[in-house]
């Protein structure tokens, strides 16, 4: 066994133990340690990715000394490694981007606790990605939820009440979701007698072949899908999103929007492919339900966003719409659709984080007021943020050369391959949603590029800042923009990776 194969486990262990460590460090040291840690984890996962690509096949990694079907396992394939690397990178950028806000908004004494949450979150994400054991997955889902909740509620001087309320709402929704998830897992366990994904799949294939327990199986599938859908804020379970994303501190908001919900979706995809089998899922028609809600979400999210008067809440609503895209892709029920969804996970993560970071950059120079009126001319006050926001917005709109375009193409192509009703709805929904996206994003772009005359600016006490004054954000924005372009222009290798990864799932 190659040494590299240990790395996934190492990264989980490293992150989980760095949590307690961070509590003991001072704020500054905690920050530096976290940066290093994420860097290391990223490097480890990169090595894993390279290894898996070079061998061309996935491997399972036994935890402890019990072999399957009893022990706990980690499974590593191309897709898992890719997601892990990706999450690390985005996490890194999200954390460095929010330094100023954290210093300003979070109480001095609680700042290092933020890093604990980040550690736990990263740990749970990586574990979710790699695990081969469904109950382990459940446990890490809960850890994920708890740490995300921590990120939202962390003592925020500006909006304490809001964040508290938001985190309660978030928790309640999540608990509903995890309750259903757990029930689903119990059902499956009861049906199959296994917890390891590969074994479960065999058992289920057996069940399907013999025609036994069809109804419980269907119930289990429903419970799992709905549970994870609730947790990932699929319409209509999105009521917590705008508050949570809109009032949490910058890093939290970008982390939550770009990764937490994506982790759940990835888990769902994994369950579909690795536990239940995609054929069975397609046969169960659960996908149709997801598809419908995905489409409604796409439209409703955008409509809400249009009415929104605060830039952050607008971006949050846009997330709801984008989650809708992903579920719509899943709902198409083809591999191409799933590839598109996964690609959109990447593209949306990059774009949404970019939007949050740049939106903060813009509100920072507008007295932290986020209603649109105050944002007039913000792009001149913070030029980099203006450009970055524009890029993000264009990507959301599906402008060619940016990542959003490629995922749109992939969705549409996937849609053309399926039955005509679904295809029709998908294409029309894509078109309408594009228009709606245009409406609210480009409205904002135009707004921030409309100059405010110097006097009013002075009167309101708006400042101008350059990129150097907030290096963290500058670096993050530049990196996100570059990633966006890379995803938009050089999509081929990434799509291929996703496809091989999915093939390994089968």
């Amino acid at each position, binding site marked *: 066994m190659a040494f590299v194969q240990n790395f996934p486990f190492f990264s989980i262990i490293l992150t989980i133990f760095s949590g307690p460590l961070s509590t003991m460090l001072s704020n500054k040291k905690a920050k530096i340690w976290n940066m290093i840690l994420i860097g290391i984890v990223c490097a480890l996962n990169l090595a894993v990715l390279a290894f898996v690509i070079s061998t061309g096949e996935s491997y399972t990694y036994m935890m402890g000394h019990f072999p399957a079907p009893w022990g706990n396992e980690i499974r590593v394939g191309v897709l898992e490694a890719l997601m892990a690397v990706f999450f690390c990178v985005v996490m890194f950028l999200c954390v460095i981007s929010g330094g100023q806000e954290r210093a300003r908004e979070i109480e001095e004494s609680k700042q290092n606790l933020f890093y604990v949450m980040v550690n736990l979150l990263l740990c749970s994400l990586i574990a979710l990605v790699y695990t081969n054991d469904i109950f382990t997955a459940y446990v890490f889902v809960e850890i994920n939820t708890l740490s995300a909740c921590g990120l939202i509620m962390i003592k925020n001087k500006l909006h304490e009440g809001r964040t508290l309320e938001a985190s309660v709402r978030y928790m309640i929704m999540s608990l509903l979701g995890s309750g259903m998830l757990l029930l689903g897992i119990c059902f499956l366990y009861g049906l199959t007698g296994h917890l390891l994904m590969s074994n479960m799949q065999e058992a289920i294939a057996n069940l399907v072949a013999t025609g036994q327990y069809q109804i419980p199986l269907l119930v289990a599938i429903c419970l799992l899908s709905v549970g994870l859908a609730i947790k990932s804020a699929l319409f209509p379970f999105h009521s917590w999103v705008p508050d949570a994303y809109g009032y949490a501190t910058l890093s939290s908001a970008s982390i939550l929007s770009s990764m937490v919900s994506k982790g759940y979706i990835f888990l769902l995809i994994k369950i579909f492919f690795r536990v239940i089998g995609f054929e069975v899922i397609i046969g169960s028609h659960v996908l149709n339900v997801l598809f419908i809600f995905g489409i409604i979400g796409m439209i409703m999210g955008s409509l809400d966003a249009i009415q929104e008067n605060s830039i952050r809440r607008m971006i949050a609503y846009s997330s709801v719409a984008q989650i809708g895209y992903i579920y719509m892709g899943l709902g198409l029920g083809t591999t191409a659709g799933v590839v598109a969804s996964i690609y959109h996970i990447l593209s949306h993560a990059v774009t949404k984080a970019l939007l949050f970071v740049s939106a903060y950059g813009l509100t920072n120079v507008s007295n932290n007021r986020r209603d649109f009126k105050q944002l007039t001319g913000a792009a001149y006050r913070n030029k980099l943020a203006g450009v970055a926001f524009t890029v993000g917005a*264009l990507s959301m*709109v*599906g*402008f*060619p*050369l940016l990542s959003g375009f*490629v995922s*749109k*193409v992939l969705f*549409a*192509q996937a*849609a*053309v*391959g399926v039955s*005509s009703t679904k295809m029709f709805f998908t*294409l*029309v929904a*894509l*078109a*309408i949603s*594009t*228009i709606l996206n*245009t*409406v609210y994003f*480009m*409205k904002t772009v*135009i707004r921030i*590029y*409309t*100059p405010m005359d110097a006097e009013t600016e002075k009167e309101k006490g708006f400042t101008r800042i350059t990129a150097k004054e907030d290096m963290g954000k500058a670096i993050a924005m530049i990196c996100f923009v570059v990633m966006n372009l890379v995803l938009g*222009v050089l*999509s*081929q290798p990434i*799509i291929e990776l996703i496809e091989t990864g999915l093939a390994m799932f089968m």
Partner: protein
Amino acid sequence: MSEMIMPIVVLLPIVFGLTIPFVPLKSKKAKMFYVEGIVLVTSILAILMLLNQPTAEFTLFRFTDYLNVSFRLDGVGSVFVGICALLWPLATLYAFEYMEHEEHQPTFFMFYTITFGVSLGIALSQDILSMYVFYELLTMVTLPLIIHSLSREAIHATRKYLYYSLGGAAFAFIGVIFILVYGDTANFTAGGVLDLVALADKKELLTLVFFLCFCGFSVKTAMFPFCEWLPTAGVAPTPVTALLHAVAVVKAGAFACIRVTYYCFGPELVKGTWAQTVLMCLIIFTIVYGCSRAIKETHIKRRLAWSTVSNLSYILFGVILMTPLGLVGALCHMCFHAVMKITSFFCAGAIMHKSHTNYVHELDGMGRKMPFTFIVYTISGLALMGVPGMCGFMSKWALADAALTDGSPLAIAGVVALLISALLTAIYMMTVTVRAFFPGKDFDYSKLDGVKDPTWMMLLPFGLFVIAMIVFGVNAQPFVDFFTNIAMALM
């Protein structure tokens, strides 16, 4: 290696355009030379390319294995390249004088130049995806040009433009995807890329998709009911309205419609279906509607914009006839209308620039003060009306010829619409002329003191355009032959 010239032509204005705000040229004049230089070099290269007619393709980059951005020059593309390459340097020259007193000149010229490159990109695109990419880019790079003055009106107009354009593109996108998935190849092929025998069971669906796609692209061409944005966008500086909203942007829409109809879905698929009927009805309605609105409109540039709406639908009418002759007519009008409309817009711009008037009723007596401008305006008006001997007549002739060869009742209705629109054109163009030259006996000319003809930078383009209008009108055969050659490839 001759195909290398294609990316150069496209990228040169884009890359050098980006440098305009940053070049360390102090004097205004030097900057002017720099801008004009870029445009001229590009135009010359473009024309060289047209003469050279490279046949090979050039791939700029790949999205995926089968999705890429690549260039190839073909007949229809040549036409569009030709229009852009010939009009842009003149328009730039005009813009120098017009923009004299405006702010943010470097930014303006930056986007102005980039737009040139992007338009050429549309013309040279080899496949529908590349075209779509440049098409979207065009929307974006023209955005700052419309919003230039940053007034409330301009912002409103820009938003409208943006929503309409991107909304249209979103529906056009559906068609793009279908072509990518079902087409034998994504590259433009005369007669379409769909294998109708193999796709026999999908005909209905493909027709629907064609309809959506055509509607999508026709947003830029301001087909009813997607036409409101064009007059609103008239708030932009005149060189922009003239060049972009009479030539590049709207013609890009028409060009895209031609591509989609004749080179992607193919006339064979759509001909005789409900899609053709519905589209044709819309187009015919637009032809008349645009003119009627032009008559009602008193703002001079918006009036011309409505006239553009109507005239663009002439082109679409040719396109939707789905016959080679129809394509000939469409291409004719595409070329000729570019010249005519850019002239009238430039005149309007010169008038607005020199006299700071915006409304038609304020133009009384101006003809005496700006005789050259108004004479040119009148000539362009006559051409638009389709007086024989001017280019407008030739394109009308070609379109009517195509429609009557087709012979269906709708096509004949289209011809009637053309003529009604010509009459309405006479009304809204000639009233201005007559009132400008004959304001009434007691007109007090002292009101117009200080109003005079513009300088050579504006007059030179005028002169050239007038010559062009007459030459095209009197000797249209070479053009028609050229277009016929293109269209014959469809047979």
